[in-house]
């Protein structure tokens, strides 16, 4: 075990924090406002995940939503803290299955529609076993191996 102590592992996977400094510095005179000008690095997590405790990632299978740019194999960011409204792209719990569709509220009627919408639209009635599981906020689509 003691031999291992001489290994110094590289910290891969941990981004270096290199703040950009915009404050002007006068020799011998600290600018009190300089700290305000440290810029934090861009964080894709913060951008895609607004509510970490309510955000789930799921994988989509099937191309019925390709008109909104969602293809089989894509990763979806789902934010359950959002309330679905007319035209939201939602994950619907429908008869025990999870299905991604566009939610439409037309008057008092509710539909789940594919995109393009010449596909089969599902009307939600009092008898349907239906719940909005979450609202899809982003599609992450890889351009590798395609």
């Amino acid at each position, binding site marked *: *075990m*003691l031999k*291992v*102590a001489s*290994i110094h*592992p590289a*910290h*891969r*996977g941990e981004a270096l924090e290199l703040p950009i400094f915009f404050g002007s510095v006068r020799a011998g005179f600290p600018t009190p406002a300089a700290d305000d000008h440290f810029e934090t690095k861009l964080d894709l997590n913060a951008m895609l995940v607004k*509510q*970490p*405790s*309510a955000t*789930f*990632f*799921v*994988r*989509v*299978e*099937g*191309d*019925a*939503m390709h008109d909104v740019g*969602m293809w*089989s194999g894509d*990763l*979806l960011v789902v934010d*359950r*803290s959002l309330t679905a409204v007319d035209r939201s792209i939602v*994950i619907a*719990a429908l008869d*025990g*299955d*999870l*299905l*991604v569709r566009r939610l439409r509220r037309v008057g008092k009627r509710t539909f789940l529609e*594919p995109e393009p919408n010449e596909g089969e639209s599902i009307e939600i009635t009092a008898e349907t076993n239906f*719940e909005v*599981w979450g609202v899809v906020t982003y599609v992450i689509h890889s351009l590798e191996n395609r």
Partner: protein
Amino acid sequence: MSLFALIDCNNFFASCERVFNPRLVGKPVVVLSNNDGCIVARSNEAKALGIPMAAPYFQWRAVIEQHNVHVFSSNFALYGDMSRRVMDVLAGFLPEECFEVYSVDEAFMNLDCLLRGDDYAANREKLLSFAEEVRRTVRQWTGIPVSIGIAPTKTLAKAANRMAKKNAGANSIFACLDEATADAMLAAMPVGDVWGVGRKLSEAYRAHSITTALDLKNAPEEWVRKRATVVGWRTQRELRGVSCVRLESTNEHQHSILHSRSFRHAVTSLDQLHEAVASFTGRAAEKLRRLGLVCGCVSVSVRTNRFSSEDYFSNGGEALLPFPTDSTIDLVNAASMLVDKIAQEGQGYKKASVTLFDLTPRNRVQTDIFAQPDTRHESIMHVMDTLNKRFGKDALHLAASGSSITGSRSGSPLGSHAWQGATDERSQRYTTHWGELKVVRS
């Protein structure tokens, strides 16, 4: 004057499974302990079939198959992540010092800050709408249903939560804000169900005709104090609405770390038992370092099968360390000495537990000039944690934990050690592994 809420996730493990598999809603579901030996969680439908908590799986197999009960192995990666989400949502409702994570699926809140004036009843509507907002938000954001009990003490809040669960019509929320409500609630509650009353104490109470929580509340104070010490007396005062157990807010550090597992097959060789205990100690030490704590006392316990063996054997012991440490090497040495002391040859061991006690923040340790920790351990532990984080659990471990550890990862040979847990019916780790995400149809 104080007011507490206990928020408890309904059938937590079963509910976690349902979030990702809505087909299970309304169907009986049970979750097994990590060796698939005992039933550790039941949906309401499974409870209705009479399946008791902690029942051995094999005893109920016939009932389970007959009623198409859905059976899952424990998926701790999923349950741990869902627990963190629920607690994060709850913590968002109140200042940090008003919130206490009590267990993986329970949290206390201090609601004093919501009260206006001295009259609980006048605040009733406000409290109920706050509780409803909490319940609705946790359900929407995480998919987990919770029940909420509100009362002037923690012990009564626990009892109120039990009412909220029993009373389907009460919308999963029950507020106990006056003595008449408390008495009615306590009269319907067996004394053994009171928070802090263990099996032995409840037997002693029942021997003296104290069968309900209300009996305990009304028992002579002197007698309770003599028979059940100051702990029982505190419980009695809490039942009377006098708050004695304060909120332990989460920014205080943890007081012990437990790593305990049942073995898939009985472990008969002491060498294997040593390996298992060393491995458990390693896991606990890893957590210790992650929390920035050091430990002054290690305890180890082992036992044979409680259900099948006529000669049930269990033993335990603890060791004080010469100085507080977070080094796996020091801790495994101590645990190993304990195993030598407590374990007997020729037993079939079914379970081992390692607990680290006497925890203090690393930066608050007083150094003793006579007993100095080996400073080289620090760099070794750092390397160990870094490599394990990068290459997976147990990529680097002490030789004492066995030479072919695989852990219970999917895709690796399961149970190459007899002591390793089985996870035959585990669902996907939907929230912690990219390769196991939930697939939705399009």
